[in-house]
């Protein structure tokens, strides 16, 4: 048993001939919020998806709770206690909000449905108001809330989030990132991929900076926030 919940060691990943990740190593400690920041095309989403095996890591290993998951199929990763709110939300647009939540329970069965649904509605009251509405008719922020709630319905130990702030109004971003704090407080480990470095680093216990498929910097959230290189590249230099 290793001390980390998620260990990524020396991972390479390719899209056809193009190398998207180079020798990436990073760790997520249980109970923490860990963030990965980087510019467009740095490979953030690729790294997140290699955990789910799409694209599969060409080299290196990925371990979850000490178990090697580098080569297991995508749907089995979902059953191990890892859930993701994927890039672009990927909710089921013509299904209702509640059906989307039910889909989130697929890995664990529907025994806890009433209890967990109530929990999600308490965290995101907007979803309760709209629970019988088709998910495709929700606003962007509501869809993001739904994606996070759907992921949480499988009672994951590790929650992966890919740019939850993408395309949302600043106020909603704040609201969603605040709710991540609550989720972390309930004992869920969070791995957050973000472009919004300022918000993400404030929230995170630990951060990694990905540049052109390589980990350039790592440190605690506060350290990275104070780092001049990060400030120049991601925080507008002030």
């Amino acid at each position, binding site marked *: 048993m290793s001390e980390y919940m998620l260990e990524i060691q020396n991972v390479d990943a390719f899209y056809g001939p193009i190398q998207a990740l180079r020798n990436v190593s990073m760790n997520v400690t249980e109970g923490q919020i860990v963030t990965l920041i980087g510019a467009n095309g740095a490979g953030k989403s690729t790294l997140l998806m290699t955990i789910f095996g799409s694209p599969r890591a060409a080299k290196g290993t990925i371990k979850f709770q000490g178990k090697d998951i580098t080569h297991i199929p995508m749907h089995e990763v*979902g059953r191990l206690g890892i859930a993701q709110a994927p890039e672009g939300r*990927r909710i089921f647009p013509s299904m209702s909000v509640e059906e989307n939540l039910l*889909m989130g329970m697929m*890995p664990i069965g*529907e025994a806890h449905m009433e209890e967990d649904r109530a929990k999600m509605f308490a965290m995101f009251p907007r979803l309760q108001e709209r629970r019988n509405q088709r998910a495709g008719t929700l606003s962007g922020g509501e869809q993001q809330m739904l994606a996070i709630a759907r992921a949480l319905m499988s009672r994951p130990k590790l929650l992966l989030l890919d740019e939850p702030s993408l395309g949302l109004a600043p106020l909603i971003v704040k609201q969603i990132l605040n709710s991540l704090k609550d989720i972390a407080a309930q004992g869920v480990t969070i791995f957050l991929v973000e472009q919004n470095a300022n918000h993400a680093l404030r929230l995170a216990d630990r951060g990694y900076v990905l540049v052109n498929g390589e980990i350039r910097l790592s440190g605690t959230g506060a350290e990275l926030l104070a780092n001049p290189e990060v400030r120049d590249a991601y925080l507008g230099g002030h």
Partner: protein
Amino acid sequence: MLFTNPNDPPILAALKDSLFVGLIAFLVFAPISGMVLDGYGFNSHLERPAIMAAIVFAGRFIYQFLAGTSFGKNLIAKFAASKAKPGVYVGQSDGLKYLKFILPVLFIACLILPFFLDKYWLSVATLAMIYVLLGLGLNIVVGLAGLLDLGFVAFYAVGAYTFALGSQYGIGFWTAIPLAAILAAMAGGILGFPVLRMHGDYLAIVTLGFGEIIRLILNNWMEVTGGPNGAPAPNPTFLGIEFSRTAKEGGVPYHEFFGVTYNPAAEYIFLYIVLFLVVSLMIFFFSRLRSMPMGRAWEALREDEIACRSLGLNHVMVKLSAFMMGAMTGGVAGVFFAAQQGFVNPTSFTFFESALILAIVVLGGMGSVVGVVLAALVLTILPETLRTFAEYRILIFGILMVGMMLWKPRGLIRIRRPYFSRGDSK
């Protein structure tokens, strides 16, 4: 509308609109009801479409004229106001209130229907039920799982031939139903497995090919299937009781067993009732499917495969189960078809059948059970009532489809999302 201009006085606008609508009505009705076939030629009765167009014209004019006047506006406002509440709210359905009264009545009505039909209409009703079954089966594959299957008729053929050929080896009607279901599901599995990595158009082409392969095998494998000559299918029996006037070796005909007078239609009435019960069972099952995890998984897979897989769903199993479940239903329909026809041959299983079944699903509304049932009834009974226009059947189909795609792209009945909430609405 097209030719009106916003500054026209209402009466002129109404007149222009109505003329336009009347013209369209005339164009639509002219070939359908204006030409009456007479041998190889036809007589034109253009006064008929003219009358219909006039009715449409008058209706539109009255409607639009009234809507323009203050009286009409008040009337419309009154109807609208009775429901509207201020603010935005999400509508709750209340249309299902009467369902528990309507359903049993409908059920009993359909059950006793065959006793009031002559033999011809009975066969039409049976055929309609068979298409309901086929439509429901394809609805799983296309409507719920979103896998475009153009070769659905293959499973129908598997079912029909299972009964026809199986009877030579002593397989009766009742054994044939589960057997056909299993064999068709296996055929679905065999087809499904290699094609599941395909999407959309590619899948459609492969399934189309599969449908043709099955038909060609039936056509050419003379020793087993009888080739184009087909194979006879025996009459259905009930607990060993036969429905013929005189029973074959050792059997008992029903009129002797029950001590009633012989009715040549009894066999078909029996077949209809069994079929109707199977259809009812399937409708019951399918209407619950969408609130079951399996049905939801099919729909979710149609919407987003990546999201589904990351939620722990094995996409191969989900697709395969949809294919097999649909094929199974098609196979059962095939048994009833063979039993009703008393004979099967490959010409019953052409691509046109697949297209017809697909038309039922599209017309009815993808995924909607009620819609599919309605569409199946319409598409089988309508051509029979319009026998005199048999040549125009395909034309009418085409027009219907184009119209549907324009005005109701989601089919007759758009599916209602199931609600899961119980009593905690606030």
